[in-house]
């Protein structure tokens, strides 16, 4: 227990978390500090490329073990099923209408790649290894949640603008293509490829992450400032309860398919995290009546910082306890 607290504290005072906090503070204080849109996009391209590549190299190194296919299938199912759980919780905890509840639910089935990265670096600091292909699991979890959300709406006989163009957009959205593409590049070029670009994608990674989180803090803080009114207490509670529930589902799935401790933690983190890039864009197209202020604020303003600060250490503690006990 002491170890967990120490880990949580250690996590909280890392430059990465503090950079996020600085961004939130600057936005709430109405400072004019901003990161240009092009720079923020460039940072995210760097992060996706580096994460995917390193995942691929790690699979090339350790070989593909039997649970790879199982993990991918688990990811698909989790992403499709978690929105149902989220929708159920939202109906209990909040007064959101079906459209808005479904839109929010879609975000929680999908994932946040930065939360995933934060998870890997907590594992790294704790000296726990994990399956390299968890990056691929992250990629497959991006999209199915969107379909679930749209199904939740259409079930209620509501109109959604789902069509084949949207389906292609969802599956080929930039972050999935880049993450998966970089994964395959890493897989093909292996350790030799990594050696060539290591001082670009490994050494400065944590530093780049700081600037990216500064930006995410700015965006989250601006969102919080502008949408304070839309966030009722029930919604806030959902933003914290849902990741905890999601993590438990992820824990069960991870244990069932036999992932390592690190892999289980990462699957918990993926299940607990909520999207704020791919899903919002799809929702604007397919569910224009849903209010972006609600889903973005919940996902980026509540759940993201919760996971980053205390969520991840909790998931690690639970997984350690459960796996140690079994």
């Amino acid at each position: 227990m002491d170890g967990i607290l120490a880990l949580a504290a250690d996590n909280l005072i890392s430059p990465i978390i503090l950079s996020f906090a600085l961004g939130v503070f600057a936005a709430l204080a109405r400072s004019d500090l901003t990161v240009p849109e092009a720079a923020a996009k460039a940072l995210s391209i760097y992060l996706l490329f580096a994460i995917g590549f390193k995942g691929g190299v790690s699979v090339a190194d350790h070989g593909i073990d039997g649970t790879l296919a199982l993990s991918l299938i688990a990811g698909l199912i989790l992403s499709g099923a978690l929105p149902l759980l989220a929708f159920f919780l939202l109906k209990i905890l909040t007064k959101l209408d079906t459209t808005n509840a479904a839109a929010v639910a879609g975000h929680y089935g999908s994932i946040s790649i930065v939360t995933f990265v934060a998870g890997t670096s907590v594992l790294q600091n704790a000296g726990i290894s994990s399956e390299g292909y968890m990056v691929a699991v992250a990629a497959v979890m991006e999209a199915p949640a969107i379909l679930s959300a749209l199904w939740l709406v259409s079930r209620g006989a509501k109109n959604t603008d789902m069509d084949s163009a949207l389906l292609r957009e969802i599956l080929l959205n930039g972050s999935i293509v880049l993450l998966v593409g970089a994964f395959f590049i890493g897989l093909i070029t292996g350790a030799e490829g990594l050696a060539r670009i290591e001082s670009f994608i490994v050494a400065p990674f944590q530093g780049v992450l700081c600037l990216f989180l500064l930006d995410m803090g700015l965006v989250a803080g601006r969102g919080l400032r502008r949408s304070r009114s839309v966030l009722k207490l029930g919604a806030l509670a959902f933003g914290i309860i849902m990741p905890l529930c999601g993590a438990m589902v992820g824990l069960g799935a991870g244990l069932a398919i036999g992932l390592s401790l690190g892999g289980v933690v990462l699957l918990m983190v993926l299940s607990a995290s909520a999207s704020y890039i791919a899903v919002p864009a799809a929702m604007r197209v397919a569910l224009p009546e849903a209010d972006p202020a609600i889903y973005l604020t919940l996902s980026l303003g509540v759940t993201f910082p919760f996971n980053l600060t205390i969520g991840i250490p909790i998931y690690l503690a639970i997984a350690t306890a459960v796996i140690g006990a079994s």
Partner: protein
Amino acid sequence: METHQAKRVEITIEAPMERRLTDALQNAGVQGYTITPVVGGSGRSGVWSREGQVGRAGGMVQVICIIRPERLDALLDAAFSVVDRHMGVVCITDCQVLRAERF
């Protein structure tokens, strides 16, 4: 210099809908348009800004079409079919153009 009567249609639309709008325009026979960036704004759904954003969801673009007056209705029908349930502003101005054969 000889000028010709035309219409300038400025459609402010959410970025994720951009391709749908331009596809609809093409289908309606509108081949010429220019897309310009938008960095922020305010409307019934609140204030927004592109600063620091990574995804396309929270942003808009402007699509500007200059067309012959007689083709305005076809364009508006096409635009409206896309804009309908979405955020977006359609603004039409009378204008004069050089080189009318291009429109």
